[in-house]
């Protein structure tokens, strides 16, 4: 397989190259380009890279979480919008969301993941990457990038499953790279999306969500029927669901739920605290003293049609 600039762009723009840089700093060594028996190396390489790739996913999702529900955490500080009360990060929304994504909330395994990953590779073809960014990522990694590039493409074309959380993170990062290429430098976070400002994150989400921004159109233009509309629809669905689930996850009991003692929470969930829900409680409770009465003391109504009042009488 010939390694092309576009594929290197793919790795860079999805944050994977940054993750590799982080892994390399931690001592990971990638095999030489075009190593023999690349198929056999898929597993070990992914195992070696796995911590960095996991961090890539966590960073991207945490960066999204604090965009919607900021707090005093480092991700919120980086985006330039904080809040003194805890937010999505303290609620462990990133763990909530990644667990769900990897549990097939968005059906990216098999056909979907391969189609989307291949589409991402193709979509990056015509988008140049500033030389200074490549330089900053470390030229010594490029040889490894070539081989890893081959491997990830092979993975995309194989029957193995790419974790959905990672694919979603790559989409967020790809959009981040469009908004601000400097975000690709993995600092302070591995994921480019987490390195954006709050306003830039909004622009990245806009790029993903609005069809005229071209991202989704590029996907469709690079995919065969009948997957075409399916893939773009999937992106719209996935991004919409992501934002909704950040809200949902942040305000649930997720981080305080104990499966071994499910009826009583381990502590007050962040979401309950910051929404004023059930002050002081750790259980769901059985009722409220909310009964007021019946409007107009009407507790017993019948149909009016039988009384000959069935015809609409709006003036």
């Amino acid at each position, binding site marked *: 397989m010939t390694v092309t600039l576009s594929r290197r762009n793919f790795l860079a723009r999805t944050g994977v190259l940054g993750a590799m840089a982080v892994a390399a700093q931690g001592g990971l060594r990638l095999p030489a380009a075009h190593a023999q028996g690349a198929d056999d190396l898929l597993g070990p390489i992914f195992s070696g890279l796995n911590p960095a790739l996991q961090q890539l996913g966590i960073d991207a999702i945490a960066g999204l979480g604090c965009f*919607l*529900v*900021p707090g005093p955490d480092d991700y919120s500080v980086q985006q330039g*919008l904080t*809040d003194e*009360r805890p*937010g999505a990060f303290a609620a462990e929304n990133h763990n*909530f969301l990644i667990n*769900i994504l990897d*549990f*097939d909330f968005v059906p990216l395994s*098999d056909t979907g993941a391969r189609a989307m990953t291949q589409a991402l590779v193709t979509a990056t073809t015509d988008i140049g990457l500033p030389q200074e960014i490549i330089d900053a990522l470390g030229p010594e990694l490029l040889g490894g990038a070539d081989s890893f590039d081959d491997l990830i493409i092979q993975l995309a074309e194989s029957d193995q499953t790419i974790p959905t959380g990672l694919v979603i993170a790559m989409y967020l990062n790809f959009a981040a790279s469009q908004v601000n290429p400097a975000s690709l430098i993995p600092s302070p976070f591995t994921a480019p999306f987490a390195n954006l400002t709050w306003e830039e994150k909004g*622009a990245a*989400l*806009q790029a993903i*969500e*609005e*069809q005229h921004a071209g991202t989704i159109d590029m996907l469709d233009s690079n995919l065969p029927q*009948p*997957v075409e*509309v*399916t893939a773009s*629809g*999937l992106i719209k*669905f996935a991004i*919409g669901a992501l934002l*909704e689930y950040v809200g*949902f996850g942040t*305000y*649930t009991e997720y981080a305080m*739920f104990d499966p071994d003692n*499910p009826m009583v929470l381990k502590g007050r969930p962040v*979401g*309950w605290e*910051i*929404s*004023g829900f059930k002050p002081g409680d750790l259980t*769901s*409770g*059985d*009722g*409220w003293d909310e*009964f*007021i009465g*019946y*409007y107009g*003391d009407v*507790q*017993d109504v*019948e*149909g*009016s*049609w*039988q009384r000959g*009042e*069935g*015809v*609409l*009488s*709006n003036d």
Partner: protein
Amino acid sequence: MTDVIVIGAGAGGAVVAKELAERGLDVLVLEGGPHHTDPENTWTRFENDCTELTRGYLRYGPGDRSKPWWLRETPQNSLIWQVSGVGGTTLHYYGNNPRAMAGTFMGYDGADKDAYDTAHPFPFTYESFIPYYEWVEYTLPVQTAAMGTKEAVFFRGCEGLGLPHNASKDVTKDSFRAQENAILQPGGTAGTTTDSAELVFPKATGCTFCGYCFQGCIEPRNAPRNLKAKRSTDNSYIPMAMTASQWRPGGKDITLVPDAFVVKILHEVLGSETVVTGVRWRDVNTGDVHEETAPVVVMAGGCVEDPRLWFNSDLPNPNGWVGKGFTDHFFDWVIGVFDEDTGSSKGVGSSARADFPGRGGLENVGLPPAIQAFSTQFSDAGIRGLYGNGLARTGEWDGDSGRLSGQEFKRIMSNVDNLLNILIITDDDVEEQNHVGLSTFPADEHGPIPKVTFKARNRSARTLANREWLANKGAELARAAGAKEVYRIDWPPLILHVQSTMRMGHSADDSVLDETGEARFVKGLFIGDNAALPNGIGGPNPTITSQALATRTAEFIFQKYFDGDPWVTTDTPIQSIDDRVTAAVLGQDQPDPDEGGGRGLPATGAGLPVLGGAAIAAAAMLRRRNGGEAPGSPDGVHDCTAARDCACKHH
């Protein structure tokens, strides 16, 4: 061989099953999801544990939560919110049971007759349908809802708009009212305390205002299953169907098989007709495949699964309308922010509504925090202040429509009980473009999966105009109620009120069912759920109309295939909270009718006439059927002396 196979134990299938079991037929009910037999000890009501779509205990998937949910493709920003299991999506519902708009029925001749989807009416008159409404309203029972704080706030807004109060089950003009709810209204300590020790049956009866309608109803604790407050079919029709032999002479208990996913409708061609012969189903837990035969099969798996099963069974579809014409009330969402307590997280999910014939309706919705947060993020109009995704609109709300984010979102969420949510329920048109087909995604263990397509931005001009009008009206209502800030979210399709994918119609050119509910192209095959509705019923919540239609369909089945007589206009229904049903559910001896049995009192020995509101509603129906005369003393049904705040005419 059995008499009737019912596929699905949700809102509609449970009704068909109970009605035919009551007539003595052998009824086999196959439900793809689980049967929650001990919810009081297994349902936490925590939002992630319960309502999270992929792994919550109320999800569309197998009961074994270590297994993935059952995926459906939605090639657009949208969500299908459906529950598998006994009770179906009534496990989620708020029990709202308004009747349909009369203008959606054939023969309607009101001044507003042109304001509806006139191309797709019910193929019979509203008047002829009322006895079926009454039958279901009595059985559940349906009652006029009590107020909590959020209802009082909503009503204040309605009054501020100058809307009149509608004290009727029928809608004849723009007006507001308390919901007609299939929720047992509060009695005893219910609604008066937060002390769980006091909220135990029979000290408490009916709704305890816990605020968890969406998480499934377990209140009041210790109540027999059929006396739980919310009348989801797992608490009402299914307990009745499973015990029919005990409370109805000649009745026969259904056979209920949960975790049984039907994968094929078996059929044969006889002459020029395709005739149903049975079903093939798969045991969700073991993977074993079984077949069962019957002369009648009733599909009631919902608006998405019915067409999927039809396609996967290779049944004929000569006019191409299977799966088409999906209506969903094209919801939208307006949030009012108050500087006072609104009680939004407390009480019944919704007990107040405003109706606008020809437009749709508005209802208040109370939510706990996670789903509240979800509702503010569920948008097709981008993020307020940043981008509009081509849809950001201005109106009676503040600024642009769209998601809330950052500090604005957090501030608005800072007190969930300072919010008033208003659901926009659009009277939407039947359109071919909104449909269920099969996906190109890999099949699951039950065959090719469904693909649900909604062209939200390209809906009919009437649908879009109705939605805009209602969104503005909702914002005005919030403002009139005292909201300091008002936001419009502009939801994408939330596929929760689902109707008409296997629609009944007067024309063979654009309907799947004839006016009896039988498939035009497969004899012996009926649809018994929301999918059979001919249209979006004008905007009211669809469950009661589906259940009334399912009752009507059951009558036709009994007449055509079992040589029986109709019963709805000649017989007296038995309530799901009747002593006889309670005794059957508890495994007790049947109560002696000479000693008060059958009056809707708990068969627990406590002797408390605690369900006064239900009895009042029952009395109203019986009075009408007796020519306006009360059947007994004081009304033959309830002991109003012990029903708190009883508003009956007898004292």
